[in-house]
């Protein structure tokens, strides 16, 4: 009968290099959407600190500890990335497995901000969007999530089904930036 073979969202699409910029797929490990149960925001925050060493992030913020990141994901939503959620979290929050729902692409390089300026309508200058900032925003025509993970490095997340469009849009923008020299 054989086994089920896993395939990542961007398999065959990435990595990609244009000029000094590169885009690569991030193997994030587990991704879990956390939503605090009614009135349990503080308790969920405490449980997260106790179990994962990171708190519930403020709006547009990211908390991180080692490989684990908690990325603010909108109203009552935080995406815990890179760690299997501890049992304790379930007492105070609703946990939904999202490990296969999102394509996560890392954009690196000196022109990364310029590339995003062509895709994302939010201010991603380092002064306004320092490392550890995140935004739910449009990426091209797609709803996505943009997180700054380094001075010239970003995570871009869109629904898995749109990975090809993300790579298409990203490649076009990277080429346009590179052509400017």
């Amino acid at each position: 009968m054989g086994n089920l073979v896993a395939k990542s969202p961007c398999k065959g699409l990435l990595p990609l290099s244009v000029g000094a910029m590169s885009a690569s797929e991030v193997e994030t490990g587990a991704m879990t959407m956390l939503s605090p149960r009614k009135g349990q925001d503080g308790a969920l925050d405490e449980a997260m600190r106790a179990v994962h060493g990171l708190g519930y992030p403020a709006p547009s913020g990211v908390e991180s500890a080692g490989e684990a990141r908690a990325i603010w994901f909108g109203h009552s939503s935080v995406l815990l990335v890179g760690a299997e959620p501890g049992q304790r979290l379930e007492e105070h929050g609703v946990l939904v497995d999202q490990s296969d729902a999102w394509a996560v692409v890392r954009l690196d390089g000196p022109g990364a901000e310029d590339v995003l300026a062509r895709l994302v309508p939010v201010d991603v200058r380092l002064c306004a969007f320092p490392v550890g900032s995140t935004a739910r925003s449009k990426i091209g025509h797609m709803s996505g999530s943009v997180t700054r993970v380094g001075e010239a490095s970003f995570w871009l997340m869109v629904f898995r089904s749109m990975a090809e469009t993300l790579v298409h849009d990203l490649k076009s923008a990277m080429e346009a930036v590179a052509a400017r020299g």
Partner: protein
Amino acid sequence: MRIEGKGLIARDHRVSFTFDGVRYSGFQGDTLASALLANGVRLVARSFKYHRPRGILTAGSEEPNALVTIGTGGRQDPNVRATVQELYDGLEARSQNRWPSLNHDLLSVNDLAAPFFGAGFYYKTFMWPRAFWEKLYEPMIRKAAGLGALSGEDNADRYERAFAFCDLLVIGAGPAGLMAALVAGRAGADVILADEDARIGGRLLAETYEIDGKPGHVWAEEVLAELRAMDNVRLMTRTTVAGAYDHGTFAALERVSHHRADRGAGAPLECFWRIVARRSVLAAGALERPVAFRDNDRPGIMTAGAVRAYLNRWGVAPGKAVTVFGNNDDAHRTARDLMAAGVHVAGLIDSRHDAPEVQGVHMIRGGQVCGSTGRRSLEAITVRRAGGEERIQTDCLAMSGGWNPSVHLTCHMNGRPAWRRDIASFVPVAGAIPGLRAAGACNGAFSTAGCLREGAAAAVEALEDLGLKASEPTLPAADDTPYALEPLWAVPGKGRAWLDFQNDVTVKDVKQAAVENFRSVEHMKRYTTQGMATDQGKNSNVAALAVLADATGRGIPETGTTTFRPPYSPIAIAALGAGAEGKGFQPQRFTTSHAATVARGAPLIEAGLWYRPSYFPKPGETDWRQSCDREVGYVRNAVGVADVSTLGKIDIQGADAAKLLDFVYTNMFSTLKVGRVRYGLMLREDGHVMDDGTTARLGEDHYVMTTTTAAAGEVMKHLEFATQGLHPEWDVSLCSVTEHWAQFAVAGPKAREVLNGLLDTPLDPQDWPFMSCGAVSVLGVAGRLFRISFSGEEGYEIAVPARYGASLFDILVKRAEGLGGGPYGMEALNVLRIEKGFITHSEIHGRTTAYDIGMGGMVSARKDCIGKTMSQRPGLEEPGRECLVGLKPVGPDGRLLAGAHLYRKEAEAKRTNDQGYVTSVCHSPTLGHMIGLAFLADGPERHGEIVKMVDGLRGVTTLCEVVNPVFFDADGGRMRG
């Protein structure tokens, strides 16, 4: 004609170009206009309406005459202003609006007929017969009166859109803008300095002003070098800020590659920017206005400032014997600069009797130029003075009626400029654009020192707003001579004195408008078309309204201006829509089985943004029906596999999850047992059906709802509204899990056989009755199984995390094929559901109620739900409504068509006899004839009746029998197994 030693062009870099096929040469740093003038080309265009010969009027983006077409084929770019187009080697430009040639334009007969073509001519003439306007007159007029054209081929150029953010946006890089950027840059603000020119400096490049004892352009270079060294300052050249909008947002067009022969090797032609600035300084300068006099549009007549620009920046003398005509001191500079460069000045005419004397030139004070002669280019002018008229031989006239501050952007949010009598100009009103300050010439400060002062002051004020420490800079020394003029708009006299060069509007036209009672400036504009060309009246606006003010006996401030709207200068639609063509039009969503589907040659259909297989063709099949019938057969007789991952899946958890479901569905979900699935119907607030689907109860407080593919987003929004807006007190969380799970329908008598062997625990029918659900282990992977059916057969939907989707699809298909089945597409899926009378959005199309689709009983009487009250409105439940029925043709070969209407058998097929309409049809391979779903007045009571289906569009009439919409296995025995 070039003047040795003058100009800021690269003399060692010669470039070659053509105009109307004739080869010329110029230098790097030239514009097409400066190069044409240097080559003695004066006739460059034909005017819009009368096809009059026209030359270059200005040296900037306001140019109304010198519009040319650059390039050919897919890259043909019409209506390019020669004054903006930078010269490059190999540039090919062509004149427009002429036939057969610029020199011999047949439609110049229009000019002879001009007495008939005045303001309002079209409105008065082409009224009858009415139908002729659209079919004959308008196309004819459009053809005769024209600009350049596109090639009709796909645009081969690339465009882009981008966003930028800054503390301070400085618009314009002349002395005021440079000073503002310098002050703000030194204070550490994040600055964007944008200028429409390729070179920084603005008017400093065109004049002989000195700043701090240095030529103005040298000072500008020094400032530029300092700005370049600051990493908090971003220079955007060739970038026209074209519009001002709410919240400090500006639109700007960057011309990225228009100046390059290779068009930038992958770089876009243009970039449309949206710049969001916390504060802004408008330093857009001023535009010189012409003076209206008889035949003031002859090639060789230019604005005085443009003549200086060609002389000082490009080293070009636009004539051998130049005359200057003005009403202000500024015009005198033209005469002085020309003489200093050794160009003969044949006369300086100043309309003021008390104008200051200029030495070394034949000066006529208190004189007015009242006419010009020359065939296709200026040969002489006539000057009227106290002592009579004087004719002066001249091949170039530099005219100046004063300067208009470029207030345009300050009016984009409905601000109106204020009139300043001392400079006879409109100036911006402070606060017209929140956060924007005008400085320099655009604010009415016309001296260099004034510009520097205002630029610095505006920056200091903006920095204070931004909370940055601003230090008052030491201003460089510069000329501070006041600007002196006496208004002169139009020289009286016979003949046509042109105001709007681009739309061929004369002083007489404006006066005629006033006579015909189009006295409001907005009415005059529309009646005469003054200011309605692509230059938006930049060259003519103030003069035209001054003429109107005079004709109506009002003052200029009372007359007011027309409304300046974005864009400041023309923007290609291609730039606005950049990136939205081809794959950029909208995202594509692919299922995990997409590659396998494509590999099997399945044609794809779009469902929302998703791509789904229509059918999977087999060798030898020549028609989609053959494939579809075969796939239906798989499901009815063996087993079929379909990817149903595109259906929306919403995870709903929390203590109040059941309450939410009872609230949004018409039927009860709080009573559903754990491990069971129920079909649900959802209404919009207005009582009509919104969506349907199944919801499974996975745990006490845990449900997963499915939606239709098309309505997934809408339902999610609906649930968010219900939980955030209507019942924020409920403890319930929503999360889309559509993308996390790959889900496949496995349906048919052998469905269980396909699954057993994949599941780590084989299915026991006792444990898995119809409408059950639960966790399963699929080849060692944690998955979910739902026993539901959209085909009427024993059916399951099996879900695994999406990373395994492609793999599971392959395995399922292989197993199904081993059992005489295989994959099925949307066509077969549709046939299967029509045979069962199951609805889709063809039936719940937004105008049908639960009652109409035969599900009135599903609206629970024991509870409230969204839409319930409104669904009970009078008219929504009464007899006579069109309700769901099945249709089958009376003859076995009868055709049914979706979209056709239903009538009584004997009735005429007309609107008043309409009884309903057909929503879904298919050929049923199971039954051997066509079947359809339809809405028919009182339908459920009319089973057995023969009605007439008429498709007026396709000309098909079929007699049909009204039947139960469930055509196959009416008691559901097959799917319950």
